């Protein structure tokens, strides 16, 4: 049962990841690209958690946690750069 659910989940998240990437490449504005990158970071967290579930290990939990905790820093830095030109004023 869980296996089927995992298949569906991985398929969905994977599709989301591909679509986010398409958005990232198409743009058109730099804001779209940064948001797409942020979405991809979120999807990556999901993929890692799903991989951990399908393999039945907690080993990957920390990676997911670190991405969740620090992934937003890159997004914020990129945004600051676009908006203010300097990330530490």
């Amino acid at each position: 049962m869980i296996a089927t659910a995992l298949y569906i989940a991985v398929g969905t998240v994977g599709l989301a990841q591909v679509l986010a990437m398409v958005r990232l490449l198409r743009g058109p504005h730099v804001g779209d690209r940064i948001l797409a990158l942020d979405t991809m970071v979120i999807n990556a967290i999901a993929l890692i958690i799903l991989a951990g579930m399908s393999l039945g290990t907690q080993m990957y939990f920390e990676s997911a946690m670190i991405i969740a905790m620090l992934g937003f820093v890159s997004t914020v830095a990129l945004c600051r750069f676009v908006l203010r030109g300097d990330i530490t004023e």
Partner: protein
Amino acid sequence: MSLFIIVALPFLGALLPGLFIRAGRQACFVATFTVSALAFIGLMTHLPAVLGGQVATARLDWLPDLGLNLNLFLDPLGFMFAALILGIGLLIIIYARWYLSRDDNMGEFFSYLLLFQGAMVGIVLSDNILMLLVFWELTSLSSFLLIGFWKHLPAGRQGARMALTVTGMGGLAMIGGMLILGQIVGSYDLTVILENRELIQASPLYLPALLLILTGCFTKSAQFPFHFWLPHAMSAPTPVSAYLHSATMVKAGLFLMARMWPVLSGTDVWVTLVCSVGLITMVLGAFIAFFKNDLKALLAFSTVSHLGLICFLLGTGTTFGAMAAVFHILNHASFKAALFMVAGIVDHGVHTRDMRKLGGLRHVMPLTFVLATLAGLSMAGIPLLNGFISKEMMLEEAVHTTLFGSPLLVAVVATIGALFSAAYSFRFISHTFLGAERDDYPAHPHDPKAGLWFSPALLMIPVIALGVAPFMAEPFVRLVTEAVVGGVAELPEEHLALWHGFKPALFMSMIAVVGGLIWLALFSPLSRMWESAPRPEAKDIFDTLIKALANGAGRFSRTLHDGSFTRYAAIFTLAVVAVGTHAWSTGTAGGATRDMLRVTPIAAMLWGMLIAATCFLVFYHRNRLAVLILMGIIGLIVSVSFNYFSAPDLALTQISVEVVTIILLLLALNFLPNRSPKESTPIRRTRDAVIALIGGAAVAGLVWTILMSGFPLASISEYHLANSYKGGGGDNVVNVILVDFRGYDTFGEIIVLGIAALVIYALTEALLNGPVRAKLLNRDFEEARAGDAHPLMMVVLTRVMMPVVLMVGVYIFLRGHNEPGGGFVAGLVVAIAVVMQYMASGFAWAEKRQRYPYHGIIGAGVLCAGLTGIGSWFAGEPFLTSAFGYFRIPPMQEFELATAMGFDLGVFLSVVGAVMLLLESFFRLGRRAGTEDSEYAIDIDPSRTSTAEEG
């Protein structure tokens, strides 16, 4: 005294003069003299054994697998040279004490002198040719320091450089020759090599070895065509010239030829080459010496000539020649050292060494005149002085030597050489001391103090004693000759004697002396001819040659290395691919032994995205911000892939490094335009693309092959897996490798990391204090700025996140030893937590609240790691040995403590400090003029507004 101590004494003693000079010149002199005297006495304690035919040895294994051992031995040949080096060294030290003026740094001088002395003693006592080479190079280096001692004189510096270039080049050739010799025999021990004459001479490598070794000897002993460096080395202080050019440095080449005599000599090549080089040098040196007006230049060329003479004697390959060579080495050392010192005395008294300004000095410097006459006549080969005996032996040997099929050639050339030699000796005496007293001396000449004349006077004892009664030296000379010959041939019947009867040599001697007098009488017309004749100037040729070589090297390296990164990358890629292809096509590869893993849809998807992102990155590469965003994707996919391939440690590191990289590059983008300009033509871009594809395909192919085949060697993983817990007390093998198995590497790496961060800091400071500062501060904003500088949302969020992230950092640090994590990742995580504060509330605000300087954190980290490593010494274990144990503090569960944790803490602190120092440097660079530093953390703070209204 042990031979080790004799060799080590001058080296250790070289430290003393520099210290003792603070206690005064006399103390400095006494210290130096004592060191040399101790070594000399130590050597003399071996005299009875040496005379008794015993060979003292001292052996110490250094790198036995390479054949490099500190083996010393003392045979009569080594003894004679060591006694000359140390004995004349003592006299030189006394002389130098009175010669050096108060402006000269005596401590420095004596330090160099002792270094040189140690290196020379090392050469003559070495029983290992590799050690001999080490000492050989040391003499080149220390003589460079001595020759260039008067650093304020350009001639001194140039002379020193020339000497170093020529002798250093010879040393290089010598290394090649010695290694070949060692390969032929299979041992680098001199005593073993000397017993293998047949083996060496039969080897096809004999000729290259001989030529290379002779190049080394000829350069060192200033033989034609390498003779030119020696006269230029005369700009050194006179004690140096007296020491280097009478008894030591230039004799090193002769010593080695004598040492290698049993195995190298006797072949046609040896006889032809060494004899002719020696003869040419002898005649040429003597001829030029006659016309030199500077006393020291005359002596320099005379030294060249006498070295040629000894070289010729060794080259004949007969035992009589060897005996004459040994005897002349002794004689030359005694009279030439004295002559140099006399030249120095004249220079000291009259303040010139130019013979055109000298003459008649016998009236005002009678004592110096006597010394100069005795030594000069000995050099000329006048009977009852020691120079006569050995010179006549040389002439005798010349009569019996056939070169190029002509029995007369050598005899004639040798007589001409002797004639010139007599002529310049007579000129030295007559043009300096004879004639009428002049009244235009640059200074008031007078005989020197005892300190200056003592040394040359002492040297007159052997000059006269051996001249009158040469038989006194015969037993010793025979003993040394026996050591030179090494049992290859019978010792000669002849004896050292004043009178040999009416032999050809006597008539040749007479011709030489009479001819020399006539030649001197013709000095004025000859000198005018010499001055007007065109002649090659060695220094100009040398300078031109060096300049041409330097230009050539420069052109070569500029072609490969012109500052364009594209070019380096292209050359590097193509070279590596070419070498790799060659290895692939000539070597053997195991072939694919593994099956492909199943390609899951998710793996295929990630792979496809990675490829797509990379392609787009290349496509968009002129848009710098787009490149950064695409790099973000690639980093993300790589992190996920690390997880997919079960490498959580790498994934953790990759994620945190990715964040820091993006921040760093964004900081760098501050100083760059958003789009990079097109700088190359389409053709160049195509070329670069082709090279890039070739390189990429090669790497991909290599990785594919490695992944599909088994390991060519047994993998070390098994060992690490088996010993990780047992030895390091951790289940996380990756971490145990970092902090334990390869702890030393990690220790070095954190130091390098710290240094790199400090260098970046230093560069930043230099930029900010330089003219660039104004430019940096007044950059224009490219685009209009939007929003707040320090938005409320972000400040609140980062403040809330800060403790959480720090806690996660601590967690990752603590679990690192047994599960994925560790100091490095924890350090990055904590650094990001701090950087968030900088980003949210601004640099000025955050900097004020930063209490500990980042340099200090780096230092603390390195110190912490180092102290942990040192701690294991107290347990009697080597550096960085781990220990671990289990503890229990009542309310908690049992937990493990390992010393590796202290080390990991060091790694953690270094990483935090280095990353922060690096980013902070960029933050500082990014500051612009006109930005107001807010004193508040948040620009628009509702609570502040309300309190303001209330108040």
